[in-house]
């Protein structure tokens, strides 16, 4: 489904990713873990086309998307939950969600999707006409996730989806990921709730200082002593 080959990227003169390669199979959930500032968000943004790659190849569904602008990546079937919410602050909750279902393929079933999101996050339904910028931190996170679900992606990229969410909602999020994965959506998730993420995923990558240093089945990573000390703090 998604092949990332030797991708390099950075900001200005500063390189943030060195020859990163990874793969997400059809219907797979893959997680990336790594320390602060390792380049995980950069990687997600590069895949989504938001941030340009300096080199390497990204192939989605057999089609090269490396240099595609983000809206074309989106229409190809990729949706993203960006780090730190990034909702459209001056638009209402409803409008934010409708933007999620903006692209042509998703438009047809927008109404059903909207209802589904409201069902998952009743709080969003309550706040339907509130401006997104005035939502609480957690509510904005729900909105960002809801918005991505509206896009009906075949590959969902999530950058720290549980950020700022109450434990009870974090549970919900992980359930949702499982559910939509069961519906056939592939998922690539960057998550700091390392244990939950690895329990959910089938495979995992460890990204450190812009390089993939480990790739393994999720369960193996959970048991890996290096990972346990570095990321689980045990």
């Amino acid at each position, binding site marked *: 489904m998604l092949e990332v080959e030797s991708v390099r990227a950075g900001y*200005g*003169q*500063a*390189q943030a990713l060195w020859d990163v390669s990874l793969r997400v199979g059809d219907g797979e959930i893959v997680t990336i873990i790594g320390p*602060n*500032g390792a380049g995980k968000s950069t990687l997600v943004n590069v895949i989504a086309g938001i941030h340009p790659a300096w080199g390497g190849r990204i192939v989605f569904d057999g089609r090269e998307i490396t240099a595609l602008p983000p809206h074309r990546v989106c229409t190809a079937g990729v949706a993203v939950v960006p780090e730190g919410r990034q909702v459209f602050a001056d638009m209402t909750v409803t409008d934010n969600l409708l933007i999620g279902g903006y692209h042509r393929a998703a438009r047809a079933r927008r109404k059903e999707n909207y209802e589904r999101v409201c069902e998952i996050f009743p709080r969003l339904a309550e706040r339907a006409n509130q401006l997104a910028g005035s939502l609480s931190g957690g509510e904005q996170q729900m909105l960002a996730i809801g918005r991505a679900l509206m896009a009906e992606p075949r590959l969902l990229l999530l950058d720290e989806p549980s950020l700022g969410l109450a434990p009870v909602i974090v549970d919900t999020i992980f359930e949702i990921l499982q559910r939509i994965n069961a519906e056939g959506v592939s998922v690539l998730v960057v998550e700091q709730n390392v244990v939950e993420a690895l329990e959910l995923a089938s495979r995992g990558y460890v990204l450190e200082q812009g390089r993939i240093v480990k790739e393994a089945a999720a369960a193996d990573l959970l048991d890996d002593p290096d990972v346990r000390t570095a990321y689980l703090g045990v």
Partner: protein
Amino acid sequence: MRQRPWLGPAVTLVVAVALWFYPNLVDAAGWPIFYLLFAYTVFFWVTQASSWNLFTGFSGYFSFGQGAFYGVGVYALGVLVVKRGWPLLPTFVVGGLLASVLGLFIGLVVFRLRRLRGEIFALMTLAVAFVLGAVARISPTIDGGQGIPLSSVPTPDALGTHPQMIFRLGLITAVLAVVVVQVVQNSRLGWGLFSIRDDEDVAETLGVPTFRFKMIALGLTSFLAGLSGAVHALQVSYVTIEEVFNIRVPLMVILMSILGGTRHWMGPVLGALVVHTMSDRLNRAGLEAVSDIIVGALLILMIVAIKEGLYLRMRERPLVTAIGAAVGVAAGFVLGPLDSAVTHLAYTLLGAVLGAMVPVGRRRRPQSGAPATQTIEEVVGG
């Protein structure tokens, strides 16, 4: 460099003292008296642009009030000196003070309301200028539509001939403005204003007394603008509402400041110098039909190529700037008529500006660090 906040004002004052005798030099060397007037006009714009920048550039409150403050100064002189027979020199200061009263009044009303920011504030200040214009038009004691001729104003002998006087008055106001801005920029007031520009609410919660700072800044800005307006009245010589309370002054000032850069006191100074020199020379070339097109195109080019402002760009690239200036000087000798120092200045500035536009330079990547294991006491103590 940062450790010496007194350096800028000191240099300014030294330059000012030297410039004070420039008219004598012009006299002695038999240079065109126009040079004095040219310099005065640069001073005028330096004062206006610096004063605008002090409030708007630093605090981010976009103000069109410059026209109003300037206009109050011009009319203060016209009404008080011509119609009321006040003495000239004190009236300059009165012009500044009146403008400052207006500025503080606007601030008092507007800053009470948290939400009057951004374009709303800009419009408020624009409206003030129009209101003043309308009031002046209605009131015969101010203008009443007749205009005020200033030809009869007696000028004090102490300051020399008219060109010498206007030069020196302009010099004083410009130096005052620049020093004030320099001092503010390196003071807590300046940093307070910068933080207001970036995020006023956060500034306030971090301890910046935002209301007081905005008032002080606006008060200073309007005083300088009014003072300079009062001086400029002598140069306008026939004051009319349409020419005073229109958007020319605010637009020019915005243009100069942003071109030069709003983050440093030198930006507006440089912007005023470059813009006025260029437009003066283009005007002199007498290419009426194309000169506006050239001005417009240059403007567009500069905005597109130098987003952070001329000054910061030049400071970042001293070498190319210097090379550009040198090429400009040389071009002045090759191309230009060798008749005028101002023309040479224009070539030099043009060269420097074009040089600064050349994109070069690189940035380092910082190493990430982990949180240190110090205690707070260590930090505070150290």
